[in-house]
């Protein structure tokens, strides 16, 4: 009798959580994924220690591989909450990456090398230049969307085409290399593990969480996304908020570009970052952010990104062919939105 009561209460709790907490179902889904993934990894190890090491290493791989897109997804959260969308992230990353590469190239064609700047100062200047280019590209998109009153989908579709195409043409002759020192940005081992990209992702997530909840800008992004008219009539500079959202997005893309260059030691201008926009949007949507703006959270996006990442890992462990994995992504996005719809109706 007592146990059945307890059981009922527990289910009641689950049911209430389902109905009330927006991230409850997302968290549950992630938990289920993690359990499945752990089972798929198996327990066929000589000792618990060996199993734990394998399990941990698997996790570090998952997180490190997704840190770059994860950071883009954080920016995408702000863009989508503000009522917009950014399709250009993959292409702007290539443009920013090309600028950084040409700056830090230790070969004869490296810009900084040519004026005698090498080593750490060159890296700092190179990264700064990348961020500046990112901010400028973000300003362009922001101006088109705010002052130009252009639908974000169109404005960023245009930016996407322009950035990658121009970058490819401009870099047709050059073949820059990345200096060894630059690889240390992500390649330095902390506690014997390659976890720096994960730390960058985490730190940025925490900062952006605070920005979204505890700064005027963060709250204004929600306000503008939910009701632009009321926001303007309350003295919010709607155009400025929109512009800043795209600037933030592009600055984060610049950070991702640095991480990618440092990890891979090169950048393939034709293919790098393609599909980032869709993966980032998928993570944001799975994390419960509304496509129509005004609702969403940074924490949700991190959970959404993890769900995608863990699922990918799970499919890998199960030996699902790579071509088929994208289909699972599609299914999970559709399922997530269907669940959210149900929650909103309650």
């Amino acid at each position: 009798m007592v146990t059945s009561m307890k059981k009922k209460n527990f289910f009641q709790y689950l049911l209430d959580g389902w109905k009330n907490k927006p991230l409850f179902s997302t968290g549950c889904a992630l938990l289920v994924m993690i359990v499945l993934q752990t089972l798929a990894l198996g327990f066929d190890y000589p000792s618990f220690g060996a199993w734990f090491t394998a399990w941990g290493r698997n996790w570090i791989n998952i997180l490190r591989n997704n840190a770059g897109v994860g950071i883009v997804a954080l920016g995408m959260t702000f863009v989508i909450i503000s009522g917009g969308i950014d399709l250009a992230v993959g292409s702007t990353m290539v443009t920013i990456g090309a600028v950084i590469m040409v700056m830090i190239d230790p070969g004869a064609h490296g810009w900084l090398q040519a004026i005698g700047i090498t080593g750490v100062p060159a890296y700092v200047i190179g990264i700064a230049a990348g961020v500046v280019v990112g901010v400028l590209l973000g300003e362009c998109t922001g101006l088109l969307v705010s002052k130009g009153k252009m639908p974000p989908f169109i404005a960023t579709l245009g930016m996407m085409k322009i950035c990658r195409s121009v970058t490819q043409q401009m870099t047709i002759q050059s073949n820059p290399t990345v200096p060894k020192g630059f690889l240390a940005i992500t390649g330095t081992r902390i506690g014997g593990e390659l976890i720096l990209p994960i730390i960058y992702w985490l730190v940025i997530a925490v900062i952006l969480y605070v920005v979204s909840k505890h700064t005027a800008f963060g709250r204004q992004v929600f306000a503008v996304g939910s009701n632009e008219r009321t926001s303007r009539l309350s003295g919010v500079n709607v155009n400025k908020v929109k512009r800043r959202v795209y600037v933030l997005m592009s600055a984060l893309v610049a950070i991702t570009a640095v991480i990618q260059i440092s990890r891979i030691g090169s950048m393939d201008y034709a293919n790098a970052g393609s599909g980032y926009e869709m993966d980032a949007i998928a993570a944001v949507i799975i994390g419960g952010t509304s496509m129509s703006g005004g609702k969403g959270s940074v924490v949700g996006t991190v959970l959404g990104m993890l769900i995608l990442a863990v699922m990918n890992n799970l499919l890998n462990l199960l030996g699902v062919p790579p071509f088929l994995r994208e289909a699972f992504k599609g299914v999970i996005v559709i399922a997530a939105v269907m669940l959210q719809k149900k929650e909103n109706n309650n």
Partner: protein
Amino acid sequence: MKLEMNGISKAFGQNAVLKSVSFHLNEGEICALLGENGAGKSTLMNILGGVIQADRGDILLGGVKHAFTTPAQSLSAGIAFIHQELNLINDLTVYENMFIGRELKKKNGFLDHKAMIRETQKVFDQIGMDIDPRAMVRELDASFKQIVEISRALMMKARFIIMDEPTTSLTDPEIQRVFEMLRTLKAQKVGIVFISHKLREVMEICDRYTVLRDGVMVAQGAVQDVTTADLARHMVGHEVVSGHREVSDNLGQEVLRLKNMSCAPYFDGVSLSVKAGEVLGITGLLGDGRSELFAAVFGSLEGASGSVYLDGKAVKIRSTLQAVKLGIGYVPRNRKENGIIKDMDILDNGSIVTWDMLGRKGLLNHKKQRADFEKQKQALRIKLDDVRNGITSLSGGNQQKVVLAKWLTRNPKLLILDNPTQGVDVGAKEEIYEIILRLAREGVALVVLSSEAQEVIRVCDRALVMYHGKVVDEVRGERMNEHEIMRLATGG
């Protein structure tokens, strides 16, 4: 053929909207249907148009009893209802709109465009209107759109046409064009019901009038026997509420002065001034331009000419943010669209205008945010459980108080309130009036925009009446009564 409605009664729940109203219309006659908002005009016409059904009473067409349960039945009996919001699709051509839902088809199933254009042209010829059937509706001005809609009714053999405030959104030349068409229809023995608040137009175009007040038919007769003042008196009734307040005598310095403000097509050459501690009312009919005038003052409507002086200094307000920083508060009309942010909680809604001042090393000071709001919550007696609940969990009156609270946290010196009691129940209405009067005592300059004469009389020291974008007169003291305001607002 004669249209008669006899002893029509209708109640919504406990609320009797029509009490045994009789109404008749002859062919080839234009009859004005007059009354204040809520007098029962729309209900009566909705019954005739088949939108709703009467509880009691008969509708007779040429002596034959009819009962309409749908607009389609009413239409097939020859009665067309042209609503204020026109029922046309902007992105289709005129002839496609004329035949929407009843398209003419050829034997092979494709549309017979030629036949539709021919039929449309026939109707336009009949009423002497020069409209190209192939034009896009979007490109027509408002009067021609109305004419297209009336033509559609004629094409469906309508013998009686109900027009609900057809001239509200039209300019003077457009109104003349519609009137010309009405005269043509009249000559062709069509009967027309003309619902309007504009008494001058009623005098010009109508043959007879019927006045409803509180669901009762209070007067009818020939228009040539009455003046606009008579009609206004019938609409308001005899017992006038004269509960206007003691006019405050300790007014401060002038806070706002407008000189010759114009912005076509909304308002034209408006000048006014408000002092600290004063409540200035601006009233008139829908579309008189008062909302647009103060949207321009607040920096949310571009393109106005004229000068704005704040505390005696000339200012050019280009953005709402600038207006806020200058100490202007603005409670817009249509709370749902313009006043609240539905996805945010009560506290965020009640503090959005002070976010830029709540900084503490870039972070919002949530303690101060909460404290500021709590203070206003007490002062305005907002009823709520938790400030972190969604704004939509509150009643309309409490939502409106939250909108007020957000401005009061910034201590504005000038507060503009547009329809402040829209969608608010009677009790909360009275509370909002008290808040307005308290703010005036505390030295805030207030501008109340309202189409309800009683509201203006209740809270304002004096009021300007607008008509077609111009201030026609100022009323204060004894002259600030419903008769006078109604007369001025209707252009009489």
